[in-house]
């Protein structure tokens, strides 16, 4: 017991030390007065700490931007951290946010198991936790805004099958399989396509979620299978990389079915251009709104739903204009819109 307490103290001290090191990351995302200067009373200002997986992803970057704006509008203080997809860094981030005395913690868990000690720290510090996307393996949370990545993969690939008329060659370009969402999207797609005997998955290369890598892997695949009919991309960047690979190989991407997930600005722009068939969009704006709404409810003592499914909307030429409006992206020309 004693040693546990000691280890705990050491960890918190360590968190304090690293807080000063990571101050650059935190400072650039912080708005309003610092949490530490606020006295810990029940009617204190709402200080939201959001631990992100990785802010280099346009999706999370958009979400942070909206949350920051909403926080400023409502007079909350807002701090975002990012872990570059490293579960250990995320734990440190969470400890830092706790040391910084946030009174609401939003966690976008990289790994549902690795994040548990962080949630437990928040529990013992009495800080309510809102989990995003995935359910943690332990610890208490007030609300879970979840995405069903397996279902998303299946939905995306059922559209692939539909557009191919149940027959054709498909490339399943996945994200890094050590990221659970990437793995689940890929699995969801693979399982769905198994239902169609006429469809063959000719390759499932792994990419590092960058357009560069996706373009390279897709170019490699085209060496063997020049006649692929469709690509499922684990996210928009991967799908865009595949589209670029088609273009570079002298194939018009408009003649191919390319379907991905996320609905980022670059993704929707490609839908507008007609090169990207469909993106299963989970708008960062929507997610940010749900997060801020839930945070405000918890802070003022109102009840919140334990689990909220965050719906993904298929965006294609039929509904692209409305989707661009919902997302609030500054996209002006949209020739492919119907």
């Amino acid at each position: 017991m004693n040693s546990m307490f000691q280890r705990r103290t050491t960890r918190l001290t360590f968190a304090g030390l690293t807080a000063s090191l990571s101050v650059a990351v935190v400072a650039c995302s912080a708005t309003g007065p610092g949490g530490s200067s606020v006295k810990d009373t029940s009617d204190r200002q709402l200080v939201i700490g959001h631990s992100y997986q990785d802010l280099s992803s346009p999706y999370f970057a958009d979400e942070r931007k909206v949350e920051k704006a909403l926080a400023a509008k409502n007079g909350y203080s807002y701090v975002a951290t990012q872990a570059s997809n490293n579960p250990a860094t995320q734990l440190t981030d969470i400890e830092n946010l706790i040391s910084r005395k946030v009174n609401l913690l939003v966690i976008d868990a990289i790994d549902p198991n690795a994040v548990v000690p962080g949630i437990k720290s928040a529990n013992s510090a009495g800080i309510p936790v809102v989990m995003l996307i995935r359910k943690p393996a332990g610890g208490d949370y007030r609300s879970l805004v979840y995405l069903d990545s397996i279902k998303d993969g299946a939905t995306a690939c059922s559209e692939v099958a539909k557009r191919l008329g149940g027959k054709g060659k498909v490339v399943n370009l996945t994200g890094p399989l050590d990221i659970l969402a990437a793995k689940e999207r890929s699995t969801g797609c693979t399982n769905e396509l198994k239902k169609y005997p006429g469809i063959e998955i000719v390759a499932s290369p792994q990419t590092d979620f960058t357009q560069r890598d996706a373009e390279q892997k897709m170019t490699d695949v085209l060496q063997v299978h020049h006649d692929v009919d469709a690509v499922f991309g684990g996210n928009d960047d991967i799908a865009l990389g595949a589209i670029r690979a088609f273009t570079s190989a002298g194939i018009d991407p408009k003649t191919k079915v390319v379907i991905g997930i996320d609905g980022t600005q670059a993704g929707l722009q490609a839908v507008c251009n007609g090169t990207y068939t469909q993106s299963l969009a989970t708008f960062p704006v929507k997610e940010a709104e749900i997060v801020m709404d839930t945070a405000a409810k918890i802070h003022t003592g109102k009840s919140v739903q334990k689990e909220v499914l965050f719906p993904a909307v298929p965006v294609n030429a039929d509904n692209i204009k409305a989707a661009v409006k919902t997302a609030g992206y500054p996209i002006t020309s949209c020739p492919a819109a119907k």
Partner: protein
Amino acid sequence: MTPNMTAVAERPSLRGAVAKQGNRYRDYALVAVFATEVLFWTLQSPAFLTLNNLLNIARQASTIGIMAVGMTYVILIAGIDLSVGSLVSFTGMLIASTLIGIDSIIAALAVALGFGAVSGLFSGYLVSRLHVPAFIATLSLMQVYLAGAQLWNDGGPLSVTNSAVLMLGSGYIGPVPVPVVVFAVILLCGHWVLSQSVFGRHVYAIGGNPEAARLAGIPVRRVTLTVYALSGALAGLAALLFVGRLATASPLTGTGLELQVIAAVIVGGCSLFGGKGNLRDTLLGVLVLTMLQNGLTLVGVSGFWQNFATGVAVLLAVLLSGDVLAKMRKKEA
């Protein structure tokens, strides 16, 4: 040239002559690894040994290869440049923004080479003047550029439409992709400078023994600055080629590139302790790793096994082509 300098300038080649005895196995081993790989993938996939795929491999190797030329110089003086990956991302954003203002490839090229070189000079300054260990200096810059690339457009990409830039990254001269031509020119120039010029000899001398090199009157600081500036400028050029290939600048483009580049140089047998290595072997190192990625995708190896295979292959290549064999033989003798 002063007599003193000549003496030292000769020394590395003498060292080279002595080292050659041990390196003979390595020379053949690396070529053997390369040839074995070609044979292996040819047997595994009918698509491997086709003109199209070979050009594809050459194109993929060219961007990594351009950066590996700079990295070889850096590692030869016992340095390291971890900033190149993030530098590619950041310079890419810078290039895209420049093109929005001035729609000209000259401006893009100036920004790419200029910013890369300035960044390299800064690393070189930190290393040679302030004696910051190269690992730490360039690791810090890597983080700074990573953050910079993300902050630039709030984490979002910028698209690029300049046709000359797209031509540079995606175009062909006859059947040969333009980046391959650029890489060939840089490789040949780099090889000539390293093997024929006084500067090249200084690079080897500093890597072999920096203190002796300094006492012999070699301008260690100036050479160090130049070497890092070269690495930075070549990373900037690679950034321009990536932008032209992808028609977009993303803050993610350079993710993990530094490790691919360093791995290629090390597989090429360059010693991390400096003074040993050359650009022919670096080229082989780049090709060995590029063909590995290409082959794995062609054959359809997916998921975790790709990472696993890459790790094992790097280890094997280093064991077969590095000092290990030579050292073992020495012990036996």
